[in-house]
């Protein structure tokens, strides 16, 4: 008879410290209600680009989700394909705004900037050739190929002139030309074969050796004293480049509190005003995020520069949202009692990071048995959920104290990186121990940390140094990983009240042993340790994988639940947008009647962005793009010589009119979610398959043609499968706009092909337009 061991406590589901990193691993985003106000501003900006560029201030305490919101906004901006926006983000880590500038520009590679320069030049080149009937066909080639090489080769356009004009335009956009002149010049050098890379480095504020006198001094430093002013002017010129290229630019500055020195609030405010104003003038949207304490002391004259004349509050989760957030991390039937959720929400003030930290501590307190939690436990957990860094510092302080008390030498031979700090402790006997203080914010971080510790052990092993390790974990800690680490080290989970005694116990045990002999260890021990380490690393790898999956799952659950939670809000917004789309189609119809192609383009672009943002109707998107193609053909009509332009004009106008009607229908009666779902198609296909197979089988049984039973069954099965496949594919095709609106697409193609096809001089032979036409044979 065996005694069953008690089941191990489940791992803590919550991170000890929730941190969102901009540009970090892409996970699902939960749309919470506080995000929608800012999103609406972003969509409006993109729709109306380049008419009005707002500046937005976000205010929220640490952990409220400012970085999370900025990440989401950046994602939303780039998701809206019709807008084609670019996003640059910087976290201001110091009062030196030049650092933020460097960080912002690091979002753009040289290739990215070259693409923007190319787009800017292309627009200029296009507007030049499209201004004259004689060169409109060159414009068509540029438009179709996205290249001006042919126009350059034909000397229709002068690349140097375009570059120099662009440079002058960029210089002219800034009031103070000292910096903009240099920035504009450096932008022009980006495509230089030898100095392009150096120009990019210079532009990114990294120096760069350029031969021209103008750019010999770096952007920051040199004669320029006021770095903030340089940053504002440099960003303004770069924003101007984006505007010339017609590319919306979203500039996001996180943690602005770091560049507001308490002794120069006025100066910082002035810089923020300039950023908001000057970038706004170049049609770039600026979003700045900071803590309420950062915004509070800023003078009142700052606020007229920002949207709604105030900072948008970030975070402040409602009780329901707190419940969603907590629920996303829980597994199976685990759940918090609603009163407990309410209390967590109260104690955290709706701060997402604090919600999770309290939950982490609460989990520790009850060992995962959430039903046991009381109000007092939660209040206690809220107290314990302090800063991990503070706790790590405290652990080090205690370690130093213990070393001093026990007369042990202690030094820090190396830095273990961002999460680990490594100390070597040596007794007078020469016996050494390594103490690793490691901070783990969550389950995934703990796994990574365990991998690092295994790395240390492997290194010491390779170096023939048999010193023992004590691993002190601060923050997230699980029994599973602890037990693995025990195989190669002594592990202590940092708890303020018991840490000192546990540390002394561990050190005493190590120091009591004789010092390890120098030199390589015996081979047998070597291979044994090696095997142990390899097993451990494998196990850690598996844990890491499982935890990453769990983390992703939590994000997805939160996103799903949040979506369900805000679905009524979504529905309202979608309904409102649909109404706007219908009204927009009326505007489009009026623009069509007035025959103003540019207005049609503008209205349509705005409608497509609205649709992408809030409705996501694929049919509308497809039809809208077809409409754009029709507009291109209309443009061609004014260039190409056709025998019956009137008829083609009428056809293309009529087609646009019909497209508007179809787009209206697509908005009014979209294909339902049911028909869109894969399971629906599956059910229909299976249904059809069963019916067909049954019919075939029945036919086989009741007709005089002989067929063995087994063959009949097999044949019925094959026919059923074929029918299912066919039906499934057919429905799949039917769902695709390109299939359903194929007729309209073909009509557009036919009209496009018909242009120029009836030119009497179109036949093989020497190209016309050669500079010196050869004299005719008659003339000779």
């Amino acid at each position: 008879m065996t005694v069953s061991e008690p089941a191990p406590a489940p791992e803590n589901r919550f991170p000890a410290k929730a941190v969102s990193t901009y540009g970090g691993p892409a996970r699902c985003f939960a749309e919470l209600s506080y995000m929608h106000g800012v999103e609406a501003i972003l969509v409006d900006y993109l729709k109306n680009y380049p008419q009005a560029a707002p500046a937005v201030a976000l205010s929220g305490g640490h952990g409220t989700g400012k970085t999370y919101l900025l990440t989401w906004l950046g994602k939303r901006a780039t998701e809206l394909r019709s807008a084609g926006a670019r996003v640059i983000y910087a976290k201001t880590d110091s009062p030196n705004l030049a650092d933020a500038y460097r960080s912002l520009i690091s979002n753009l590679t040289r290739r990215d900037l070259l693409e923007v320069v190319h787009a800017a030049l292309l627009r200029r080149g296009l507007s030049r050739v499209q201004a004259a009937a004689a060169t409109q066909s060159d414009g068509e080639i540029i438009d179709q190929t996205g290249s001006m090489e042919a126009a350059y080769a034909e000397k229709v356009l002068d690349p140097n002139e375009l570059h120099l004009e662009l440079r002058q335009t960029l210089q002219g956009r800034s009031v103070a030309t000292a910096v903009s002149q240099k920035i504009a010049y450096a932008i022009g050098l980006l495509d230089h074969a030898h100095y392009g890379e150096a120009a990019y480095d210079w532009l990114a504020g990294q120096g760069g050796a350029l031969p021209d006198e103008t750019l010999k001094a770096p952007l920051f430093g040199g004669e320029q004293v006021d770095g903030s002013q340089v940053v504002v002017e440099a960003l303004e010129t770069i924003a101007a480049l984006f505007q010339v290229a017609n590319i919306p630019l979203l500039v996001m500055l996180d943690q602005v509190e770091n560049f507001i020195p308490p002794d120069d609030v006025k100066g910082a405010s002035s810089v923020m005003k300039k950023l908001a104003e000057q970038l706004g003038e170049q049609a770039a949207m600026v979003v700045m995020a900071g803590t309420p304490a950062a915004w509070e002391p800023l003078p009142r004259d700052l606020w007229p520069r920002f949207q709604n004349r105030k900072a948008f509050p970030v975070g402040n989760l409602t009780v329901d949202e707190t419940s969603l957030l907590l629920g996303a991390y829980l597994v199976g039937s685990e759940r918090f009692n609603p009163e407990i959720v309410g209390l967590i929400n109260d104690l955290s003030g709706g701060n997402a990071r604090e919600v999770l930290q309290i939950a982490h501590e609460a989990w520790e307190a009850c060992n995962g048995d959430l039903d046991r939690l009381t109000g007092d436990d939660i209040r206690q957990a809220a107290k314990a959920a302090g800063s991990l860094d503070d706790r790590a510092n405290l652990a080090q302080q205690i370690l130093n104290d213990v070393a001093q008390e026990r007369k042990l030498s202690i030094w820090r031979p190396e830095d273990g990186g961002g999460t680990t700090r490594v100390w070597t402790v040596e007794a007078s006997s020469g016996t050494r121990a390594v103490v690793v203080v490691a901070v783990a914010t969550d389950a995934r971080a703990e796994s990574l940390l365990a991998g690092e510790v295994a790395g240390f052990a492997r290194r010491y092993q390779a170096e023939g140094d048999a010193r023992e390790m004590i691993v002190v974990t601060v923050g997230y800690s699980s029994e599973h990983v602890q037990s693995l680490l025990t195989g190669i080290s002594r592990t202590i989970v940092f708890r303020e009240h018991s840490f000192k005694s546990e540390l002394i116990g561990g050190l005493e045990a190590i120091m009591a042993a004789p010092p390890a002999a120098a030199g390589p260890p015996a081979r047998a021990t070597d291979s044994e340790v090696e095997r142990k380490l390899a097993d451990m690393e494998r196990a850690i790898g598996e844990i890491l994988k499982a935890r990453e999956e769990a983390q992703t799952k939590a994000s997805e659950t939160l996103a799903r639940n949040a979506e369900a939670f805000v679905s009524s809000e979504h529905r309202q917004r979608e309904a409102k947008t649909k109404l706007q789309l219908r009204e927009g189609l009326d505007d489009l119809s009026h623009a069509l009647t007035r025959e103003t192609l540019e207005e049609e383009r503008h209205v349509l672009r705005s409608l497509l962005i609205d649709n992408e943002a809030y409705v996501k109707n694929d049919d509308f998107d497809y039809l809208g793009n077809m409409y754009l193609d029709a507009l291109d053909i209309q443009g061609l009509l004014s260039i190409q010589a056709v025998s019956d332009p009137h008829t083609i004009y009428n056809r293309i106008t009529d087609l646009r009119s019909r497209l508007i009607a179809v787009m209206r229908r697509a908005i009014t009666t979209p294909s339902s979610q049911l028909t869109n779902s894969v399971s629906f198609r599956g059910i229909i296909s299976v249904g059809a398959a069963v019916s067909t197979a049954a019919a075939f089988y029945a036919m086989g049984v009741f007709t005089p043609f002989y067929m063995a039973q087994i063959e009949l069954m097999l044949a019925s099965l094959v026919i059923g499968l074929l029918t299912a496949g066919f039906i499934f594919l057919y429905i799949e095709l039917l769902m695709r706009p390109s299939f359903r609106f194929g007729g309209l697409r073909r009509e557009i193609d036919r009209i496009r092909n018909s242009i120029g096809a009836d030119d009497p001089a179109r036949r093989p032979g020497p190209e016309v337009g050669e500079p010196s036409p050869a004299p005719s044979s008659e003339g000779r």
Partner: protein
Amino acid sequence: MAFGHPGWQLESNPFPSASVALSPLSDSGQLSYYFDFYEWRDTGRVAYIDAQGRVQVFQLASGPTMTFLISGPTGCGRSSLENLILFELAQRSGEPLVVSQRLSLSAQDNFTRGTMLVQDLEDAVRQRSQAVADTILSTFSRWQQLTPPGVQPDITNLLARIRRNIEQGLPGAPIVVSFDALDHSIGHDTGLEALEMVQGFADVAILSVTIPDHASFVRSRFSSRQRPVAWINAPRIQESAFRQYLERRMGAERAAGSTPPHATYPLSDEAISTLFAPAEGSGPVELSIRLAIQKLAGALAYKERAMATSPTMSPQLDAEDVRRSFARQ
């Protein structure tokens, strides 16, 4: 022998040099193709082209280097004008020794620029006199040897020595240095520095730039230092000027004894207007002379082909012919 369709009444091609710069130094017959659509900004020094293609005002400064600034985008006749200046110079002072240098970001300092210039000059001189070229080489070598290591070489000193070599070996041959500062990647000071370097060395210095502002900048600097400078801008051409040009060219190539219905025949007024027609909503159109001629030549070729398939078609080019030809170029 006629050009194009016989009905056009043209003896020869009115635009034989549409894609290359005119060069009267190599073919003085090309003078007749010049047309004065240039903007002469210093009419006291150099101005106006007459019907024979000669520059009417051409006042070279005696002593100091005369600087010509030519601005304008590609295809607007910058190189043709430069060649005309060289031709006028040759008429007055003998065949010039011409050195052309393209200013680039890679060769920014005067030392690199100056030594490259001397090497090119030595090549140009060698075509006339091996001995003088050898003297230039030995001057260059001596100058290099005399420059102590680590000391900034004095390029002005080198150029002064080379000039003396040329004055002694090829007396009367004016030295012309032509800088092409069209590359957008060079800074706006580069042209100025290059011109400064050859002051006193060259008899004539020419700087070609794309943007008029850059020429204006150099001109104001030179004027303030009392240096002789003349700026000519080569703009894009407008319809009225092009029409005059066409009348001149068509008249010059008209077949003997023919009686065309109008001066620009076979180009109708509408055809010329179509060439300069603005797109919807655009302002007046200006085209580079090269592009305007190319488009017109294209229209003539198109018409010739169309007439080959429909012999009854009128030989005159109307607006529709020009429009159709645009689509095919």
